């Protein structure tokens, strides 16, 4: 089996990215105790790796075994007992049970944690399951599983939610733990304040005494040398004392620009996990769960429509749902597919340009292949006058200018001329299909 496992390691090292190999495969140990022939016994350093290897890699190992021995093998996975961290029992469970509401750790106030951000409220899917599992593992065994845990991913994908969830869980299990969440920008301000007040000793004492430090958006440290230096010390102090550190970032640590190399390399000492943007299926699940949270029954069709059109991230997806709810409730309508289409229509086809009378004149002139100067001229032939009237009507409908001002913009015409043009176009649009279509096309072009 030893020879076989060595060959497995060689092959995995070739097949997998280094980060994955180092995280999942390298920590596995071959169980030295006697095993029946045809069985590979592996030991995992913790339950997290065990679970992950079982789900992802065991079939591959079995396939390699069948090839190596020309007969099927069994793969068993167990926890490496010595390395398995002892789960710490929550202290004083009796008080917790008796007065659950009164239980608020003295450190909770200073922790800056948002209690609503829990693991229960975090919708898991393919895009974030690794990060979620790692966070849960760290929350259950702070300081002894992965340190630091480095979570990276784009905006609005739940990084902040996840690290608050870790903080809340740790605090629930260890009410006396010193937990602190803060955004990197706040850390920078703290450094500046310590610098101005010459209170670095106090600053250090505080940060180095924490049991769990959750620091969000580390990319804000870019180019901030003094902050990076202080953080370097804090990092070392916490890791050495087996205190847990969790960092989030918008990019992979190696890609961070303007961050000291020695910090960057330290970021990958523990485990680095990504949160990806949610795929369609997960977006639907998120919408349904968020709707349920506000006691709203949403059809799958509706959830599917929103998920299909809002692809950017979870935060904006939630915003879209809130907007749809506000829109339908105000209009006293059920949330049907039609209502949702209506509510999101403008958001999805929003105009981005300020419409000016110059713009209108230019667009209309181009459309009818006449000169822009014809918009101001005194010519009254139909092929020039009609477009000019249409442009005036568009100016009235799409800007807030006064009619006299619109008249001025069209070669110092009187406001009654503008009024007449608007009425003429309104009448024509009802009777003449072409004019009506022209109006809509131009309106759309102008709105962008």
């Amino acid at each position: 089996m030893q020879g076989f496992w060595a060959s497995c390691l060689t092959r995995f090292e070739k097949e997998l990215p280094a980060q994955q190999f180092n995280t999942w495969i390298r920590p596995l140990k071959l169980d030295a105790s006697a095993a029946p022939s045809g069985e590979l016994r592996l030991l995992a350093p913790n339950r997290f790796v065990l679970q992950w290897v079982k789900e992802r890699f065991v079939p591959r190992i079995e396939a390699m075994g069948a090839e190596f021995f020309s007969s099927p093998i069994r793969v068993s996975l167990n926890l490496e007992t010595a390395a398995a961290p002892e789960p710490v029992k929550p202290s004083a469970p009796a008080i917790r049970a008796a007065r659950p509401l009164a239980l608020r750790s003295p450190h909770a106030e200073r922790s800056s944690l948002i209690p609503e951000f829990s693991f229960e409220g975090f919708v898991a899917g393919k895009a974030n399951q690794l990060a979620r599992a790692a966070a849960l593992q760290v929350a259950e065994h702070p300081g002894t599983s992965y340190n630091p845990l480095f979570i990276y991913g784009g905006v609005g994908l739940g990084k902040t939610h996840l690290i608050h969830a870790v903080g809340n869980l740790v605090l629930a299990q260890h009410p006396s733990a010193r937990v602190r969440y803060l955004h990197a920008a706040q850390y920078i301000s703290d450094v500046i304040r310590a610098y101005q007040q010459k209170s670095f000793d106090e600053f250090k004492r505080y940060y180095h005494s924490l049991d769990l430090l959750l620091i969000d958006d580390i990319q804000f440290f870019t180019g901030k040398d003094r902050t990076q230096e202080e953080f370097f010390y804090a990092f070392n102090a916490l890791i050495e004392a087996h205190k847990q550190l969790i960092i989030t970032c918008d990019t992979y640590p190696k890609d961070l620009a303007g961050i000291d190399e020695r910090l960057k390399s330290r970021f990958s000492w523990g485990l680095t996990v990504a949160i990806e943007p949610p795929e369609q299926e997960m977006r639907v699940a998120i919408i349904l769960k968020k709707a349920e949270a506000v006691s709203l029954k949403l059809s799958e069709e509706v959830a599917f429509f929103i998920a299909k059109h809002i692809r950017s991230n979870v935060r904006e997806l939630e915003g879209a749902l809130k907007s749809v709810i506000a829109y339908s409730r105000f209009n006293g309508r059920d949330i049907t597919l039609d209502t949702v289409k209506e509510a999101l229509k403008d958001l999805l086809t929003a105009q981005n340009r300020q419409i000016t009378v110059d713009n209108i004149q230019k667009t209309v002139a181009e459309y009818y292949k006449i000169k822009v100067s014809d918009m101001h001229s005194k010519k009254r032939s139909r092929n020039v006058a009609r477009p000019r009237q249409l442009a005036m009507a568009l100016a009235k409908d799409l800007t807030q200018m006064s009619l006299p001002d619109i008249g001025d913009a069209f070669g110092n015409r009187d406001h009654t001329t503008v009024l007449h043009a608007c009425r003429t176009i309104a009448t024509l649009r009802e009777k003449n299909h072409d004019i009506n279509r022209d109006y809509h096309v131009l309106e759309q072009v102008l709105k962008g």
Partner: protein
Amino acid sequence: MQQLLLELAPPPPPTLDNFSPGKNGAALKALREALADGERFVFLWGPGGSGKTHLLRAFSEAAAAAKLEAAAVDDVARLGEAEQVALFDLCNRLRASKGALAASGEAPPARLGLRADLRSRLASGIVLQLRPLDDAEKAAALNAHAAARGIALDAELIRYLLTHFDRDMGTQIAALDALDRYSLQRKRAITLPLLREALGLLDAAKR
């Protein structure tokens, strides 16, 4: 003296109550609920003259009166890089403390060319479009404003206001108020001839 009275005074201070919603009732409701116990973040977008500034100033006043932690940021697309970071930070703090934020722009957050982290925070609450009032809604709003001051306006006069002045509601209300002051001073009812006379004086004064 008369000319001074005719100068358009600034429109009355904006409040949520004196906003004429037209098709923007959902936005007005969202702001009221943000001050109560609803979704705390509201982003309103629409062209100039659609009521963004009115609503945000009114929101800000109402939040201050209610001693609620809140911020209102008008036309966010004009923020520079450092200001965007500051607003980002403010968003985080308000979310953490359950404070309220009303912000606005001429397009939805996704199309304003902002930092991605700020943009997604602005889009994290209710996002609604504001539509400028159409002429019928403006006429109704002017009537309501006049009625609140015990004045009845005839349709002809309203049409005149809407065809001779900038058509944003701020200007329209200011024009009506100026006319109201002029009519009090002349002790004459508000009629079209009075308005024409007032405008004639104004023109003469300008020349």
